[in-house]
């Protein structure tokens, strides 16, 4: 399971171990108290309370060390230290458990089952060989304890009132118990590491597949970039030639010629728009470094509104805005954000029937600005609410309303917003029409955007 460990998850698990230990300490103290006070079991309570106190100090020290070493991110050296802490913790825990058992009945104490937990933890967190070594350590510690107590080398603290206190001197029982104990520990390590190994292999193959996908996506984007760039070059030449025919620079045209060349020109213009949009989107995906600057979002919003004002007026669409007075300077690439907001507004106007309404509401809360663009338009089929942000995807009703469209506008908008560390999504209004919401961080650097 080494792979799982070479990530921040090892550190999380190291903290998790410390948390578990707090529970164990509490259990030890409470179990001692309850057995002695309410069950009348005789045990070396003071030794156990002292052990609890030692455990508290030990756990605090571990917590401090772990925090100190992992504060500055997770460089390889820190990871190695955490690996060592985890290994030592498991060994130390085995020693402590054996000590606790010594003071609380040895073989008579069923808490000896808890060795199994440590084997599971070792198998999950550390490599196979280390887990077997920990099982061997546990065998020596617990086996040694039982044999030394049985042979009278060290004193035995019987759990009088709980189990037969002559058990520890019964050789057959001690060896039978130890045999099952050892087999259990090694089997647990074997099973857990085997399952862990399978999981690790699966995870590795998933990671490989993911890396391959990313690589393929990169190759695809480079391919699209090259192809669209070439197409754009040819289109630019076609357009340049058609331009001068259409404006009759090279001689007069009759009506029919003018009509046909005009059609050809319009189609190349559409094609050019599509190719340009695809080129920009692909470039952004491939390189996509934003040129961050401080700019007034208020001015950008008003600018976008001014740009669509005419088109809205032509369709008798009422365009309203409500911009929070606190909204002003934010950090981002102004040109891209203005274009994104303009695009969403244009879409709203495009897909709203004449006489409808388009509202834009901007609010600021904490470190994010939220811009909501609501229309009384045709709405979005529920199944398409997320798909419309995919490249080339257009909802059926949008296609029916407006035949031409690149299917790239919202993909570009999403790319821009995500690059800034924000989100964009669409919803249908209960009363008809749809709402597009986009959030943008006031300062992407502060919120950790790429």
């Amino acid at each position, binding site marked *: 399971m080494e792979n799982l460990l070479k990530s921040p998850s090892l550190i999380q698990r190291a903290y998790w171990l410390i948390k578990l230990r707090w529970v164990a300490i509490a259990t030890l103290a409470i179990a001692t108290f309850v057995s002695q006070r309410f069950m009348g079991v005789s045990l070396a309570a003071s030794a156990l309370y002292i052990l609890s106190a030692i455990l508290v100090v030990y756990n605090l020290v571990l917590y401090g060390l772990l925090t100190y070493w992992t504060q500055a991110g997770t460089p390889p050296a820190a990871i190695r230290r955490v690996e060592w802490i985890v290994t030592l913790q498991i060994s130390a825990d085995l020693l402590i458990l054996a000590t606790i058992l010594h003071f609380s009945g040895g073989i008579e104490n069923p808490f000896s089952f808890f060795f199994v937990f440590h084997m599971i933890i070792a198998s999950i967190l550390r490599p196979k060989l280390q887990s077997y070594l920990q099982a061997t350590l546990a065998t020596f510690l617990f086996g040694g304890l039982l044999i030394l107590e049985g042979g009278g080398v060290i004193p035995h603290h019987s759990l009088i009132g709980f189990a037969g206190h002559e058990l520890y001197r019964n050789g057959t029982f001690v060896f039978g118990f130890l045999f099952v104990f050892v087999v259990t520990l090694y089997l647990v390590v074997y099973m857990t590491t085997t399952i862990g190994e399978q999981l690790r292999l699966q995870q590795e193959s998933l990671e490989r597949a993911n890396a391959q996908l990313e690589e393929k996506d990169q190759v695809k984007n480079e391919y699209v970039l090259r192809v669209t*760039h070439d197409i*754009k*070059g040819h*289109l*630019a*030449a*076609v*357009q*340049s*030639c058609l*331009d*001068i025919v259409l*404006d009759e*620079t*090279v001689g007069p045209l009759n009506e029919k010629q003018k009509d046909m060349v005009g059609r050809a020109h319009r189609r190349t213009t559409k094609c*050019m728009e599509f190719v*340009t949009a695809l*080129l*920009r989107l692909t*470039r*952004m995906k491939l*390189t*996509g*470094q934003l*040129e961050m600057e401080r700019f007034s979002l208020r001015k950008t919003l008003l600018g976008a509104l001014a740009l669509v004002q005419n088109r809205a007026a032509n369709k008798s669409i009422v365009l309203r805005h409500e911009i929070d007075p606190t909204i002003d300077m934010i950090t981002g*690439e102004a*040109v*891209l954000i203005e274009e994104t907001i303009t695009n969403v507004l244009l879409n709203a106007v495009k897909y709203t029937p004449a006489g409808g309404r388009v509202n834009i509401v901007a609010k600021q809360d904490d470190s994010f600005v939220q811009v909501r663009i609501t229309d009384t338009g045709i709405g979005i089929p529920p199944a398409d609410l997320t798909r419309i942000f995919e490249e080339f995807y257009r909802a059926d009703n949008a296609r029916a309303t407006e035949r031409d469209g690149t299917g790239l506008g919202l993909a570009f908008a999403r790319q821009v917003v995500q690059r800034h560390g924000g989100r964009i999504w669409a919803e249908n209004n209960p009363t008809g029409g749809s709402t597009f919401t986009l959030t943008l961080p006031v300062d992407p650097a502060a919120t950790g955007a790429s």
Partner: protein
Amino acid sequence: MGQGSILIIDDDPDITEAMSVVLKNRGYDVRSAQDGSEGMTRLKEAKPDLIILDVMMRTSQEGFEFSRELKHNKKFKDIPILMLTGVKQKTGLDFKTSAGDEDWLPVDEFLDKPVKPDVLLAKVEDLLSRQ
């Protein structure tokens, strides 16, 4: 009617032809070259009042290199350059910021391809009138 001589350096013969027609129609004296070295030959034959330069010819940098070479040439450094580009879009190369100092890319104006005839004429007129 416009007055002045213009040299177009672009490896796309169709775009060159279309621009030539527009500019000649307005009365400019137009010559053209397909790459940097041919451009240099034409420059030496007769010094134009304006150069229209494509940024991407054989290599993506040829236009840049050519414009730099010109500005280091005493004889030609005062000729205004109008650079044509298909990549001035955002997220591609951003010439002005990556240029930084004027020495690096001493280009006077940029236009995106395809250039509309009226835009081209306006820009050319503007550049020539700055002289």
